[in-house]
């Protein structure tokens, strides 16, 4: 952030990043490849125009029907947890511009997201200013989503315990299937950041995020067994307010020439999930232009107020236990830790020259992370999740012309 002004002298910048995520815990697996490309043009010092594209290529299997240990005990030998094959492709083209005047800049970006069963329009606007002789930066931003989620048209007289999940995305947003409908989801996000240089080797960043979601937030493909013989589509509350506060510290330790980045984050929402995150990253140059970083992250959260590993046993006997039900392990109490490393090589020309006679600057990075999840309560019909490890590999390049 403090050095971003150097990029303004470039006319054209191309950034590309690729991430591969793979996870294969008990009964399921998921692989997601995320490529992205952004092009930024600076026709004048006061304006930057950018356009880009990102995708998510998803394949694997996820839980489609979730049952608790009580149902499994009453139905021994039956595989009460079924998985569904998932293949999806999300496209997200985006474009925007940044205007600058003195120490102030304004940014606006529009992103359109589309996949077979989900459509999204997102606008993002931000204002940023420097203060106190550039030792301080303030940024405030707002984002708004207008999303649509595909679902089945449920029977008129049915209540949520009788709702059925959809099996696949066929007929979604095409108008070809009269049994398909769409639900709206609106998301408002507010974000404030205060970045402060305190000394020549120490800077902090305080970040506050608030988000309000209003609309359909369930997974339309997932079912939960509520009682003997009663399988219902996952049913989440329609409103959710989320808040997060993070403090980041960057300090450079001169004797060992290592930069340490420490982050602490607390989070709370109206579904009663609270979480804490701690991150530590250390980075240093191994030789000119080549730097190596190691990072560690720990995360722990409580479950949502309506979370249960077993929704059977409600009143009356065939009724649900509680008003809402979910099969989402992300709403259960769990902890995770991540270990990772990243290597970055930068080429910067001397004086007014160019790298290889072409680039005004070039940077390439590669990273790898291992994430281990530990679920306190989430089981698949009473069987605990094991091998809940995710592997994340990243590659990114940036060239300036």
């Amino acid at each position, binding site marked *: *952030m*403090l*050095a971003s002004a150097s990029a303004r002298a470039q006319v054209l910048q191309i*950034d590309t*990043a690729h*991430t591969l995520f793979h996870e294969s815990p008990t009964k399921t697996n998921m692989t*997601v490849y*995320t490529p992205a490309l952004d092009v930024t043009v600076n026709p004048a010092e006061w304006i930057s125009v950018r356009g880009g594209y990102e995708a*998510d290529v*998803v394949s694997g299997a996820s839980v489609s029907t979730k049952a608790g240990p009580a149902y499994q005990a009453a139905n021994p030998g039956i595989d009460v947890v079924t998985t569904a094959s998932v293949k999806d*492709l*999300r496209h997200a083209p985006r474009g925007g511009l940044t205007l600058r005047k003195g120490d102030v800049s304004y940014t606006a970006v529009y*992103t359109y*997201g589309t*996949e077979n*069963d*989900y459509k*999204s329009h997102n606008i993002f606007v931000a204002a940023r200013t420097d203060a106190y002789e550039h*030792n301080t930066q303030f940024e405030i*931003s*707002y*984002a*708004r989503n207008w*999303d649509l989620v595909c679902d089945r048209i449920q029977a008129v007289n049915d209540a949520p315990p009788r709702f059925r999940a959809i099996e696949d995305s066929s007929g979604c947003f095409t108008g070809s299937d009269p049994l398909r409908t769409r639900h709206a989801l609106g998301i408002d*996000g507010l*974000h404030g950041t205060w970045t*402060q*240089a305190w*000394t*020549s080797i120490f800077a902090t*960043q305080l*970040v506050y*995020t*608030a988000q309000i979601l209003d609309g359909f937030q369930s997974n339309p493909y997932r079912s939960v067994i509520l009682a003997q013989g009663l399988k219902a589509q996952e049913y989440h509350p329609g409103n959710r307010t*989320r808040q*997060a*506060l*993070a403090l980041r510290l*960057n300090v*450079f330790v001169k004797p060992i020439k290592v*930069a340490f980045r420490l982050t602490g984050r607390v*989070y709370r*929402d109206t579904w009663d*999930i609270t*979480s804490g995150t701690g991150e530590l990253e250390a980075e*240093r*140059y191994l030789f000119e232009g080549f*730097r190596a970083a190691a990072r560690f992250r720990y995360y722990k*959260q409580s479950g949502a107020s309506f979370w249960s590993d077993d929704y059977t046993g409600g009143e009356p006997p065939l009724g649900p236990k509680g008003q809402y039900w979910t099969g989402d392990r*992300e*709403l259960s109490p769990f902890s*995770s830790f991540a270990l990772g490393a990243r290597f970055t090589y*930068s080429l910067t020309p001397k004086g007014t020259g160019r790298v290889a006679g072409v680039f005004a600057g070039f940077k390439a*990075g590669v*990273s790898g*992370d291992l*994430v281990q999840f530990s679920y306190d309560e989430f089981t698949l019909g009473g069987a605990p999740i094991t091998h809940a490890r995710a592997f*994340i590999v*990243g590659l*990114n390049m940036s060239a300036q012309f």
Partner: protein
Amino acid sequence: MRIRTAIVLVPIFVLAAGCVTVKPQQRAVLADPIMQFEGDPQANAQLRHAIENREGSYGGAGVSGGGCGCN
């Protein structure tokens, strides 16, 4: 109570920041890529996207949106 405390304390710290003077010639280390909070914003955003999609919480890093096929 904690929110009220934060509402009082944060402006005090912000005002106190005005007393800090790091001169331009002292910012060589702060300007180095290893001291950036978002040195590789595109790569960092993708890593957050991959990790936070498997968690129940969100925020503290950036405002983003859009649906994905991995929820």
